[in-house]
């Protein structure tokens, strides 16, 4: 494998890892507050449809993004009402929302555009165009780093950089602010937070809303940046891979970045069977590479590489003692 090929695979990695990273951080907020969210997939799908549809109608990718976030927030609110206010089973609520999204997206898109549940192809300002980072030309001459900067780091849509910026922002929010401390506490021991006079319900709703926003960005990225429009089931299980990445990352923001980059790298590598054969001198089935993220997650869960301990109060609705 030469350097140019490696750069191409790394650029592909970054593009494929972005929706995973956004969804993974989304799940992180929710689960850290003690609300399991298996419905990341559904929220992304709904956001992809809404952003694709609204961007096609208005011709603006930014309005599309806002619509995507709005649609995702709506599903997040439903999940919140079901699992926080009515103390329903969080897994069942999440699965239900996934099914709702899977059907409703196609239905709405078909009713709006009559194109078989697809939104019309987006052009021009209706799509997030690739951005060239500053100093690309000046740094071109620098050996190794120059091409890396130009091809891997530069030339992605703004949402990719937004996703990357969300990692330190999440770390700061969770570990350096009062809100973050409370959020982590509410996922471990909601009683103590309640005793301190902080509303468990409000904290959990805030976390679920943050999840909605991030899933909305992830969905909008898929429909208006990575692709030019929404298609049936276009998220293709990325919400579940993000959940696996979350476990792999042991519910930490920086680890989430590395985990999703690793999973993105595996996906990018699966696209280049010729490269794998060239470097390893043996054939590896593509399906094995596709399964690798899940296999790695199981290994982590089984406790071979450190232990993955979920937030202690995760999955349990909070009932105030009377």
């Amino acid at each position, binding site marked *: 494998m030469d350097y*140019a*090929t490696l750069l*191409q*695979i790394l*650029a*592909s990695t970054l*593009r*494929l890892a972005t929706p995973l990273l956004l969804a993974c951080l989304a799940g992180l907020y929710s689960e850290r507050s003690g609300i399991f969210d298996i419905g990341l997939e559904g929220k992304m799908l709904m956001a992809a449809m809404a952003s694709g549809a609204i961007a096609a109608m208005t011709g603006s990718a930014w309005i599309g993004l806002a619509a995507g976030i709005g649609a995702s927030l709506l599903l997040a609110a439903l999940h919140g009402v079901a699992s926080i206010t009515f103390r329903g089973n969080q897994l069942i609520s999440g699965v239900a929302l996934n099914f709702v999204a899977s059907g409703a997206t196609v239905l709405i898109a078909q009713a709006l555009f009559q*194109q*078989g*549940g*697809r939104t019309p*192809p987006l052009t021009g300002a209706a799509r997030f165009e690739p951005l060239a980072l500053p100093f690309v030309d000046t740094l071109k001459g620098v050996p190794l780093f120059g091409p890396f900067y130009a091809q891997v780091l530069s030339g992605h849509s703004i949402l990719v950089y937004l996703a990357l910026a969300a990692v330190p922002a999440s770390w700061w929010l969770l570990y350096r602010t009062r809100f973050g401390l409370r959020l982590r506490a509410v996922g471990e021991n909601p009683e103590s937070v309640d005793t301190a006079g902080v509303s468990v319900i409000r904290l959990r709703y805030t976390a679920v809303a943050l999840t909605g926003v991030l899933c909305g960005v992830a969905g909008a990225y*898929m429909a208006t940046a*990575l*692709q*030019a429009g929404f*298609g*049936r*089931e*276009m998220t*293709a299980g990325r919400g579940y891979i993000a959940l696996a990445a979350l476990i792999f990352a042991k519910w930490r923001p920086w680890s989430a970045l590395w985990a999703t980059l690793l999973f993105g790298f595996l996906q*990018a590598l699966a*696209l*280049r*069977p010729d490269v794998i054969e060239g470097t390893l001198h043996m054939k590896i089935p*593509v*399906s094995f590479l596709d399964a690798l993220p899940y296999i790695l997650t199981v290994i982590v869960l089984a406790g071979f590489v450190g232990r993955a301990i979920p937030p202690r109060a995760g999955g349990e609705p909070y009932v105030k003692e009377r």
Partner: protein
Amino acid sequence: MTLMKQFLGAAATLALLSGAAAADPALIYDLGGKFDKSFNEAAYAGAKKWAEETGGSYKELEMQSEAQREQALRRLAESGANPIAMTGFAFGDVLNTVAPDYPNTRFVIIDAVVDQPNVRSVVFTEEQGSYLVGMMAALASKSQTVGFIGGMDIPLIRKFACGYAQGVKAVNADAKVLQNMTGTTPAAWNDPVKGAELTKAQVAQGADVIYAAAGSTGIGILQAAADANILSIGVDSNQNYLHPGQVLTSMVKRVDNSVYEAFKEGPELSTGTMVMDLAKDGVGYAMDENNAKLVTDEMKAKVDAAAAKIKSGEITVHDYMTDNTCPVE
């Protein structure tokens, strides 16, 4: 009791009669979906044409999962639909078991051969059409590198790839043909994101014309090719209009005509295997105002000459499915 039986029997006969009277044809689309702008949509176009011309109505069903195939077939057969057309090789095994149970219903399967007395199997010589667009790709390529992206990795799609590669090599023996498949499951027909990434990977390897034979996945491939400012080649339906001026041509497979003719012949349609080749206009390449500027007269003359030779038998294009090997890479 006997009275009851008679009543029930009468009711059943009535139901059967009314079912037979409303012998509407039916069409089942495969997992790519009715509006894949490609294979299944071509079948839909044929059915629509029939409905508009005759004023008749037809039933249709879209597959949502692999498990529905047998159910869908049986349900349509029991509802009295006749003939029942289905798109896709994946129906082959299922139809082979279902067809004998409904001897009075005629079935039409596209892209597979099912040896039953009440089945018409329609197969296309995709290698010939792909050969022609392969020639065109090689003539249009400046980098001497062209690409092929298939949907699910099955012999049928390898047949497309093999015909394409032969066409490319016929024009330029030194040209490089990059080949990728999207996946190994039926989901590979509907994964535009992966299709787009594969396209970008091939562009990075130098490809400047990419042929997509991947159902709905092709939408992502054509989009990514247009984004990267290179040419693409559509498949099955005429896809030139998707990105005017950026789709070199489309390898059209006249699934629409096959469905149209089957519906027209109605419940009494003839059975057996029909091979739709270049001579019968079963396959070909698409020209319209969207790609008129991309295809020069010289290119067209060369491709048309090759088409004439294929028709006359002077050139034989190797069919991958006969021996599961391809003479060129």
